[in-house]
């Protein structure tokens, strides 16, 4: 019997893959979506902690930052915090405007309708009063209430003449399209069993199932197949029983994340692609970005219960484009993020780790807030994911190995972020206790298959089509040419929605 041929095969069901699967199946396409990780049931698996992070298989060079991701239906968004910013207009043209990074081949205006589309589908909650964002319409849902700590942070920022704003969230603040509103239980990091956090397993995936998409979890794509003319023809995958299979399609959409795409592309050699797919520019795997992430903690005289509710709260983007006299390129966002429970929080205290000094700090635990710093980092070809020369996976393929070093630029920026966090919190009433750290990991891996108009300098074009492999689209965090200074999931989803829209209209047109 001949093998079934699909209109599209999607590899990976994270932020991007879920959006694409829903859109194409919604247009009546015959879609096969293959996800390597498990498919958790929120109501059964989350309460019992059965939703765990399966090993990523990544290896790291000594001294490298350790970015990571999550493998499952829903991808890294399953455990994400729900912060749902748009990029700013300037992010699309940093080379032209600020003399650093690379201009995107598309503008904010081109992406805007897809930001709207994803926000409506997800029921984003927020306020449109952030003066640094492009003027926009109302969010589908109102902004969330903010904690006392966030209010004090906002007060401090206002005192100093900054412009605090409500942080947009993909967590619904009132019942929306059959889902209940948030209960502020602070468990977003373990998977939301209430269903108000708009991660794909609650939104795009059920819709794709309804549309008839063929979704298979526990199926790992081993290689993308191409013919003698160099065109994508399908994939070889291992099914949940470990049996190797093949599926055919003229359209393969790789949505496997910035960390996992490069090795899959490089091992997918074909008669016209001896060095793997997308190899022409030698950019596959390069320009990994991780955001200049870190945390700042401050203590107030009153109880603020910084561990309750959801992350986000209030943000300050006055340093988004940089800072006068700042010795770094572009800038960062500050927002209030959840304080971890005491047993985890204590791990962040270096100097005060035992005895009376420890107890002084821990006794004021519920007066402490934690700010997140999300800073733009500059893409550098040396920061990369490449096939590990030694370690192999269960299929005998080289594991993805990460090399990422921060530069003085990022360290200077973080120092600035600490100083501005300090002055804002103190202006809001914080005392002189503080704690801060620059992250040794990252939940925001980006880059590695950058988008661009020039096939010699980029892997995919403005639609996500791989320059040198007809029929192959790459569509996830890997295509970002620059990182921006906000959490990336909304932009990843908007780009995916745009690519899907392009494919649908091209076919019907």
């Amino acid at each position, binding site marked *: 019997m001949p093998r079934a041929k699909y209109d599209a095969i999607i590899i990976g069901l994270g932020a991007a893959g879920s959006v694409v699967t829903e859109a194409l199946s919604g247009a009546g396409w015959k879609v096969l979506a293959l996800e390597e990780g498990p498919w958790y049931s929120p109501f059964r698996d989350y*309460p019992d*902690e059965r939703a765990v992070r399966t090993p990523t298989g990544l290896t790291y060079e000594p001294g490298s930052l350790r970015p990571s991701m999550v493998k499952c239906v829903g991808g890294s968004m399953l455990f994400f915090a729900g912060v749902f910013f748009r990029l700013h207009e300037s992010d699309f043209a940093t080379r032209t405007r600020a003399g650093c990074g690379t201009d995107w081949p598309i503008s904010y205006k081109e992406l805007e309708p897809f930001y709207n589309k994803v926000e409506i589908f997800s029921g984003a909650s927020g*306020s449109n*009063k952030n003066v640094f964002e492009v003027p926009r319409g109302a969010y589908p849902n*109102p*902004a*969330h*209430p*903010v*904690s*006392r700590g*966030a*209010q004090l942070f*906002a007060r401090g920022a206002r005192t100093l003449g900054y412009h605090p704003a*409500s942080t947009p969230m993909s967590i619904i603040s009132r019942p929306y399209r059959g889902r209940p509103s948030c*209960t*502020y*239980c*602070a*468990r977003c*990091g*373990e998977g939301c*069993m*209430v269903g108000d956090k708009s991660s794909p397993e609650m939104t795009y995936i059920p819709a794709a199932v309804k549309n008839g998409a063929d979704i298979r979890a526990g199926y790992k794509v081993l290689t993308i197949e191409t013919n003698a003319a160099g065109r994508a023809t399908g994939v070889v995958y291992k099914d949940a029983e470990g049996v190797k299979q093949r599926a055919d399609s003229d359209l393969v959409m790789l949505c496997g994340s910035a960390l996992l795409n490069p090795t899959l592309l490089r091992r997918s050699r074909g008669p016209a692609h001896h060095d793997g797919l997308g190899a022409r520019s030698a950019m596959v795997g390069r320009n990994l970005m991780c955001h200049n992430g870190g945390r700042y903690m401050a203590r107030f005289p009153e*109880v603020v*219960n910084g*561990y*309750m*509710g959801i992350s986000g709260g*209030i943000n300050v983007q006055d340093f988004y484009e940089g800072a006068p006299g700042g010795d770094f390129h572009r800038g960062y966002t500050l927002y209030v993020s959840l304080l971890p*429970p*005491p*047993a*985890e*929080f*204590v*791990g962040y205290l270096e100097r005060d*780790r*035992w*005895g*009376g000094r*420890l*107890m002084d700090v*821990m*006794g004021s*635990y*519920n007066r402490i807030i934690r700010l997140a710093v999300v800073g733009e980092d500059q893409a550098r070809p040396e920061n990369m994911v490449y096939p590990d020369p030694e370690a192999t996976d269960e299929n005998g393929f080289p594991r993805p190995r990460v090399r990422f070093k921060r530069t003085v630029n990022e360290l200077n920026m973080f120092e600035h972020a600490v100083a501005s966090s300090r002055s804002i919190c103190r202006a809001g009433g914080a005392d002189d206790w503080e704690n801060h750290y620059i992250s040794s990991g990252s939940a925001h891996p980006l880059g590695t298959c950058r988008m661009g108009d020039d096939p010699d300098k980029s892997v995919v074009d403005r639609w996500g089509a791989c320059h040198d492999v007809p029929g192959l689209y790459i569509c996830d965090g890997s295509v970002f040419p620059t990182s921006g200074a906000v959490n990336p999931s909304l932009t990843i989803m908007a780009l995916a929605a745009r690519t899907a829209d392009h494919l649908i209209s091209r076919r019907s047109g």
Partner: protein
Amino acid sequence: MRRRSFIQAAVAAAAATTMTGRGAFAAESEFESRLLALAAVIVPGSEPGTWRNSAVASALLAEIGDPGRRERRERYRAALEQLNRATDDRAGESFFALAGERQAGVLKKLIESDEEFGKKIGKEFAAMREDVLRVYFSSGAGMKFTGYRETTQFVGYPEFFQLAETWE
């Protein structure tokens, strides 16, 4: 520790106290009483007796007594003995015979100034400290001390958020 396990551990610790009245354990060996004495230096506790006849003390001993971690137990035992000797060399007294405040002072000095000590037991001390901190701050006593309150989907909105206003 994930928040759910953390809460479960705390509930279990609280339940242990209820079920066993004043605590069903006794520090059975010199090693155990030394470990609890060191725990009291690391986390002095908000109430006297935090590390004696209490749920949190039982939890620490249960953690250290885990048969799967026997090798670690032996390393800790050796480190505590070395701590005792280093104190003897320095102060002419056994570490565990000193009063609590003096223990903290001696330990601080040893860590800061004695390279030999640092090399020998610094690593083990750091590991013991991690165990003590994790056990204490996951316990009912630790939650009470920090003011941490469980918030669950099933309890409903924390009143803190019910009262909060949308901010614009």
